[in-house]
């Protein structure tokens, strides 16, 4: 194998693919990056054993073939090379990286030892607008659980019904549901996709601004492809909780408030509160946000541009969870529907139904 390319371009591709490499790989070959030079393209592949990430680069192929280089070492070398043309060549055993007067010989891994990408058989394919999917992922993925207590909650439910795609995530404290329209090729089906893989894909998507995303759902894997990036991930086997029955059918109190100022007020008042101190919303004729950190500081702020219907009530939330929900809203005006300080609040944009965010309150002492 022998390829040539500019250092900056190689570094960019190398770094983005290296993000997938697990720092915990105890088996060296699994921390490697496979460089595959085909007839007219070069693919860089890395895996963390949960997903494969492939990025294609436009580099000159002098000789076809493949090598697997130690990932971290490869990244370090690329970063430190002088600018200009870089040549990478070699086979199993030794790989030489040359740029200007620098030359590195790296011991590669046997190509046959590198995991191979599955062929996703009997899959359903659909196409989605990239920018919209990127936004949807930002709105939903953060509600997935980082905790490994209940495996299915670390994933995002990907559910297709007709031409509607619904993304759902919950960590059991909040729930985010987002609907999107599928552009092409819709068949019904569901899968639970690891949140980490979707977050990774979302970051790539935001970075490349590609507007055409293809998704294949197979029995065991899902494939996401946008421009030069392809991500293949395992799925989570299990039953996603029936989120529909969590969404309250009615409410007794209705708050309408300008989204941006509300979000900023939560941020400001939240500054006083440490992570585990709730922000209280005093609902009534006047709507106020308060937070008290006993012995340290108090903060309060009255909201403006609000309309409130219903009896006065105080309800408290984890400020981070509340901010997450508000950040997801795309409408100028936010709607919060509540009934009781111990039951979920619904956040959504005014006259918008494509994204709703359900949030459990914090029970105050006493």
């Amino acid at each position, binding site marked *: 194998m022998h390829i040539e390319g500019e250092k900056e371009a190689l570094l960019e591709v190398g770094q983005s693919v290296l993000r997938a490499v697990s720092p915990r790989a105890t088996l060296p070959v699994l921390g490697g990056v496979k460089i595959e030079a085909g007839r007219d393209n070069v693919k860089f592949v890395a895996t963390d054993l949960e997903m494969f990430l492939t990025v294609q680069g436009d580099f000159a192929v002098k000789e076809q073939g493949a090598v697997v280089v130690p990932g971290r070492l490869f990244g370090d070398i690329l970063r430190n090379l002088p600018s200009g043309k870089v040549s990478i060549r070699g086979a199993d055993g030794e790989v030489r990286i040359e740029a200007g007067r620098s030359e590195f010989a790296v011991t590669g891994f046997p190509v046959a030892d590198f995991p191979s990408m599955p062929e996703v058989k009997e899959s359903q394919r659909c196409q989605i607008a990239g920018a919209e999917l990127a936004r949807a992922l930002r709105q939903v993925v953060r509600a997935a659980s980082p905790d490994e207590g209940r495996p299915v909650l670390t994933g995002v439910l990907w559910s297709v019904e007709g031409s509607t795609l619904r993304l759902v995530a919950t960590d059991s*404290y909040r729930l985010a549901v987002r609907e999107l329209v599928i552009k092409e090729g819709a068949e019904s089906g569901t899968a639970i996709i690891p949140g980490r893989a979707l977050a990774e894909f979302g970051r790539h998507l935001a970075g490349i601004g590609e507007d055409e995303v293809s998704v294949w759902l197979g029995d065991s894997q899902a494939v996401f492809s946008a421009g030069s990036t392809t991500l293949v991930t395992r799925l989570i086997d299990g039953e996603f909780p029936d989120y529909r029955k969590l969404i309250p059918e009615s409410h007794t109190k209705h708050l309408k408030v300008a989204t941006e100022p509300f979000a900023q007020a939560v941020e400001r008042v939240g500054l006083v509160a440490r*992570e585990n101190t709730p922000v209280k919303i005093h609902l009534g004729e006047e709507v106020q946000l308060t937070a008290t950190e*006993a012995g*340290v*500081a*108090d903060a309060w702020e009255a909201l403006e541009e609000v309309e409130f219907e219903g009896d006065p009530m105080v309800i408290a939330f984890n400020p981070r969870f509340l901010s997450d929900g508000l950040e997801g809203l795309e409408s100028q005006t936010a709607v919060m529907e509540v009934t009781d300080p111990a039951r979920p609040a619904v956040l959504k944009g005014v006259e918008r139904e494509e994204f709703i965010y359900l949030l*459990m309150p914090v029970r105050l002492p006493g």
Partner: protein
Amino acid sequence: MKSSPVWSTPVMHADLDAFYASVEVLREPKLKGKPVIVGGTSSRGVVTSASYEARKYGIHSAMPTSRARRLCPNAIFIQPDFEMYAVKSKEVRRVFDSFSPVVEPLSLDEAFLDVSGASKMWAGPEEMAKGLRDDVLGQTGLSVSVGIAPNKFLAKLASKHSKPDGMVLIHPDEVDEFLRPLPVEALWGVGTETASILKRFGLRTIGDVVNLPQSSLERALGSLGGHIARLARGIDDRGVVADSPRKSMGAEETFERDLTDTGEILRVLLKLSDRVASRLRARGISGQTVTLKVRFSNFTTITRSVTLPAEVDGARSIYLVVRDLISRVLSGGGASGHPRIRLLGVSLSNLKDWPPSEQLSFDPAAGWSDADRTLDLVRRRFGEEAIEFGVLLESSD
């Protein structure tokens, strides 16, 4: 030298005048004598502190900044800088500490001091109060108002009446005279809701409350009635509590026969966790650092601690932590083989004065604090040994 008499007014309440605004004036002396308002300067902000010059315009805390601006267009508006206030508050605290070993801070700008011991050094309470106010001003540049009285409730009322930059002493003989004309809202624990109930009974002043038999008040307001009746007569038994009287709260047990069985060890830890948790809850406090103590049969003693992201007061939360700690201790044993344990202890430190607030979950199985609270109720009625937590927990896991 003749021995000084014991003061009948052992409690002092010290309250800094317009604290945040005064700190801002100290930082920027040009502002002296001008209406200074600290608060959110955005269109939605509210006033957090106003200098006395600003208060003349009717401006007070919690008022929307926009309204304050209309009332006093010339006022100088400043964004709060809590870090700065905390630093200044510590300086003031050092002065307080030099006057009393028992200081109970309430917030950044006020504190109770137990001054019963000051009789040996000062001719009288007034002299001591003057000394303290002079020292605070001299060492920090801030003015403080002081109330001195037989108890906390009265001391706080007194300092309120001393503002700004003054001192009020309520002698035991003057309590009744002082309290009677005050509105019922002045009673600690009486908010707008209770006040409106009292007013429905025709009780507007503290004097009105004193004239009513305590039993009628209790009928109308339950246990709060008794509380109010006592306060109205100037009775308040709460002592001044130094802010860190206790650094940790724990429970431990030494065994007659060394423990080796993992199941038994876990059962003991569960019992200890429950004991610590119920003590925390009984005091309405919580702790953020959980410590496990293990003494082996050869008398080596080890401790392992974890600081949690949030404070806890529940048996389950504490048990889950110590369970992980003990499993690490037992599995790290290596060559020592099956350890023989002589003593186990569980303690909570990094204590907070408040119970933890609790993030509710969609998942009903996560509602463990309910179990803790039910347990407390049962115990209160039937005694400490009425119910064991163990069975409840183990079956859930």
